[in-house]
């Protein structure tokens, strides 16, 4: 949360944002209607747009966002980068995985404002001049997907898995790729793909 204070407008400040975030944590993210009456009034209307610059795949993108916008929704709804997928919006499935710096994060649980000033890499940023990233090529070669919906998240996670040093054994790969659900269950092929790509990625 230390980096979010850089660009503010509309009277937004960090103290109000934190209070708003704390308040909204009381509100379940699902829309199950409840008879519950008591809700803390927001300190400030969080729907007022906030200016933010996101660095995505090496390019600065200036946006004016609702402060509650996640990195995932910023990518999908505001930057038209729809490669990252929404599968649960709760950080439970991994379909939205992107890299922030070298770290894999679930972009559905990361607020866009919290990612300002950091390098965000999405699946769209991997291939260079139509040459697939080794991990993308390995997924093709090993048929590591079926419907393809979880694939961008799997690939981002797989790249981080290798860079973290967690691709040394099949068991390690399985364990460290278990945050990404593939409902088609292409898992054995995903393991084979990570193994194929790992040496090339480690070599750089």
């Amino acid at each position: 949360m230390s980096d979010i204070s850089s660009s503010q407008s509309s009277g937004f400040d960090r103290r109000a944002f934190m209070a708003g975030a704390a308040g909204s944590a009381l509100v379940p993210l699902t829309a199950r209607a409840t008879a519950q009456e008591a809700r803390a009034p927001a300190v400030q209307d969080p729907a007022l747009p906030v200016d933010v610059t996101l660095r995505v795949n090496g390019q600065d993108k200036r946006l004016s966002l609702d402060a509650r916008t996640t990195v995932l929704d910023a990518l999908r709804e505001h930057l038209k980068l729809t490669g990252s997928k929404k599968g649960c919006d709760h950080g439970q499935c991994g379909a939205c995985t992107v890299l922030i710096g070298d770290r894999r994060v679930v972009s559905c649980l990361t607020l866009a404002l919290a990612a300002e000033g950091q390098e965000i890499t999405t699946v769209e940023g991997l291939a260079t001049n139509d040459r697939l990233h080794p991990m993308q090529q390995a997924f093709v070669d090993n048929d590591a997907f079926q419907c393809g919906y979880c694939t961008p998240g799997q690939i981002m996670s797989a790249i981080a898995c290798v860079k973290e040093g967690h691709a040394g054994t099949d068991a390690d790969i399985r364990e460290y790729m278990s945050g990404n659900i593939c409902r088609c269950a292409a898992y054995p092929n995903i393991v084979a793909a990570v193994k194929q790509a790992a040496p090339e990625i480690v070599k750089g």
Partner: protein
Amino acid sequence: MTAAAPEPKANMGKPVPRYDAVAKVTGRATYGSDMPLDNPAYAFLVTSAIAKGRINSFDLEDAKRVRGVIDIVTHENAPKLKESKLFSNGGYAGTTIQPLKSADIAHDGEIIAVVIAESYEAAREAANRVKVNYSAVTPSASFDSQGTTKAAAKGQNAQFKEDPKVGDFAKAFDEAEVQLTASYETPTQHHNPMELFSTSCAWMGDTLVIYEPSQYVYGLKNGVAEQLGIDADKVRVVNPYVGGGFGSRGSMTPRTAIIAGIAKRLNRPIKLVPTRDQGFTIATYRAETRHEIKLGASRDGKLVALRHEGAEVSSRADPYCVGGTKTTTRLYACPNVDSLVSIVRADRNTPGFMRSPPEVPYLFALESAMDELAVKLNMDPVELRRINDTTNEPIGGKPYTSRSLMACFDEAAKAFGWAQRSAAPKSMSDGDWLIGYGCAATCYPTQMAPAAARVRLQRDGRTRVEIAGHEIGTGAYTILAQTAAERLGVPLEKVAVFIGDSDLPPGPVAGGSNSTASTCSAVMMVCDQVRQRLFKALMPNESLADKAKETVGMGQTPSTEAARSDRPLDLEKAFDALGAGVVEEYGEWKPEGAPLDSFKAMHSGHARLVGGAAMKDKIAYAFGAEFVEVRVNRFTHEIRAPRLVGAFAAGRIMNPRTARSQLMGGLIWGMSSALLEATEIDERTARYVNDNFADYLVPVNADVPGVEVILLSEQDDHINPAGAKGLGELANVGTNAAICNAIYHATGQRIRKLPVRLENIEV
């Protein structure tokens, strides 16, 4: 070549990489909610917190104060929609419970309001501020709840035509040397495809475009048109990629027409992305089932009597059932068979098709009972299947078009190392782990449906194939491209395939594992039409039929091998003779035995599947055998399934790569249905409890260390021109029984209720 691309055996196509592989690894594949819309408004659903009762009133004041809210739609101001009949009863709908029609609530999580706002964030915020005053009535949740009703399926569900029976079961069972009676239970399960149940609707004048993950674009198009009361030609459904289906997207859900109606009124595109938990109640699911199996056999293992009684839960509104007795009464030779399927009505949303709908629960019961019988007979369970193998099904005596069940058992047993098994329970272990081996049969009906296609061939060989099929992860693009390339004799890379759009020629529902057989047969036929026109131009004086037959194997079945490009047409010469630059043909194909109204129904989005046990003078099924190793920790009771081995025979294999992947995923689904998946229902409130990916357990990578798929070569000339049986729903059948059989072998404990969790083990 990698393990992912097995070397093709006889009657198998090439294991080429997926047509859509690069699009999928680069993020360029566009799913429903990826489609760009011009200035969309965002919808967020509010769903019911009670399962039965009425809405007295809404308090929307707080919600409307949220900045950016445009409208809140409830039953008091919702667009009026017409009713649609249940899919299983000849309509389009997965449920006839129509939300926002009245103040009545029929199930937990029913849509009761839709918030429309300028942003997703505002819509969500406002939805959480909607206050509802209910009058709740105590609901009936499931089998053991008070207030349910139970009645025979026959007579209330149009798709359930008969309770199969033959001979005199009661007498034969009474007199049988060995008798077994056992009861089994399977739980509620939800498909949980990775892509959420999103819907985007955009009107252009009086024309509606829907972007939505669908397994049946023609059904959805016609269903939404019916509900809106407009001409079906004014509705277009587009979904070039679908993020998994597993049956959940085969029939229309109520959300689509609601969103379309609101978008029309607002005169603005609307995008709805429901939450994961809402997906548990706004779409369908696999209902819980109960079974009683009675088997009578002679001492040498011959079945003399078999009875299967099944009961399934459905909603108050709809008589949905899967009725798997049509398969379980015909799988083995047995002269005296009886069966009965009943439906129990509870206050639930309507269940629906989920991957191998009848076979997963019904074969769990039968294949568990077969293992129990083998134990009683002190016989190897593989040998018990061999003794009761048959070439003709016992109910009507019809011959199987082909049946490689025992070949599958033998191949899989060899690969698994079944011979190393010591038969006694609890006789194998490794340190703290009790080891169990188990096996079971799988089968799935070969089904086909009418399909149309358009094929366009250019002088330079570039080819365009159009058919409203669906890419739900099965490899539809890939095998359609392969089929056209082989049939026309053009290079694969010159073929472009267009599917997932209801403006294309009608394809079948991507369900019942019929797509490959149906769409490939249609494309083959239309490719032949293209070739015929070129032949006619090249050889105007030859007898077309004779020459065509001789040159490309037209008219032979299955003809794909013969139509390979070893004698390709000289396209330049043919097009010169024709005096044209392009040949385009459209054709409509229907399977043998298709009803008279097939083509009409195809255009109006009504599925007309034929095949399986319902054929006139034959019966067509794909078969397989599955072997599993389980390990049960003797102290913690943790259960692992380190090895799953399956051998399968399904007629022509169009592409061993995509086939293997589907079967591999199926095996993992099967393991999951035994050990992981169950939707828990609060019996007091009839509400789903674990409606998210943290609590509804699906397999992750660490759950499946070893999966082996063996594809058997099989040729069947009696099913369809493509010679394909369909295998998307073959591998996840029987696995649940194989696992329980292995747990019995490991622990000596027979478990008849799924899923099996460590608390169920009593070692």
